[in-house]
């Protein structure tokens, strides 16, 4: 079932790739500045420290339509000290926002995985907020062979 639907999705993406590519070259791409603005909104202007976060992404994503992404933040996840929100932004997509994960002490681990779309080779930036109001950040470069155009 899962394979079928994924295949269908890929076929859809390939079919409209040409059209979509034209569409994207016209539309304004997100820039590191736009991504930074999203991050500033998330942190309320606070400057996040580097560390605590590990990002798992393929070094080279052959298909930008579905790129596996895993994020894990080192945190005790007790009601006194846990990671509450994790923002993911992409510096080279049409819009920088990708997803925001919201954790609670019931999450057990500040860890989540999903699959994302990447238009081009770019940096993925992750910012985590702790219950104590601290911010941490990490980023990772992904090389994208075929952009996640249509999808």
């Amino acid at each position, binding site marked *: *079932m899962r394979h079928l639907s994924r295949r269908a999705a890929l076929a859809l993406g390939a079919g409209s790739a040409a059209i979509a590519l034209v569409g994207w070259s016209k539309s304004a791409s997100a820039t590191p500045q736009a991504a930074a603005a999203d991050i500033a909104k998330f942190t309320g202007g606070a400057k996040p420290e580097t560390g605590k976060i590990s990002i798992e992404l393929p070094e080279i994503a052959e298909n930008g339509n579905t790129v596996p992404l895993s994020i894990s933040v080192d945190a005790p996840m007790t009601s006194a000290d846990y990671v509450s929100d994790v923002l993911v932004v992409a510096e080279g997509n049409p819009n920088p926002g990708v*997803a925001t994960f919201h954790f609670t002490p019931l999450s*057990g681990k500040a*860890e989540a995985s999903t699959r994302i*779309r990447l238009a081009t080779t770019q940096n993925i930036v992750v910012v985590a907020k702790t219950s104590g109001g601290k911010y941490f950040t990490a980023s990772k470069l992904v090389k994208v062979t075929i952009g996640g*155009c*249509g999808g």
Partner: protein
Amino acid sequence: MAETPKIRVPKTAKKGDVIEIKTLLPHIMESGQRKDREGKVIPRKIINKFAVEFNGKPVFSTTIEPAVAANPYLQFFAKVDESGTFKFSWTDDDGSVTTAEEKITVS
């Protein structure tokens, strides 16, 4: 919503265990960036929020942007201290909500 989500939750666990949960909802996740053959933008239609509760208490949720791939897949964890029911919900741009439930027995 006609589509049925696929959810993987262990049937049983020990008290205090941190269990892994995987979910997938078949959905086109139309980004709003694509154009049709006439050059008109295909309107955005995505799942914009996913949330999980356990016995009524929030466990995990995600705000989703169009940069999440079609058929949104999410893998995450939950700490279980008692038996109960996970409630999952996916909110579509059109306002419709797909829901599902999974039970777990904790000993």
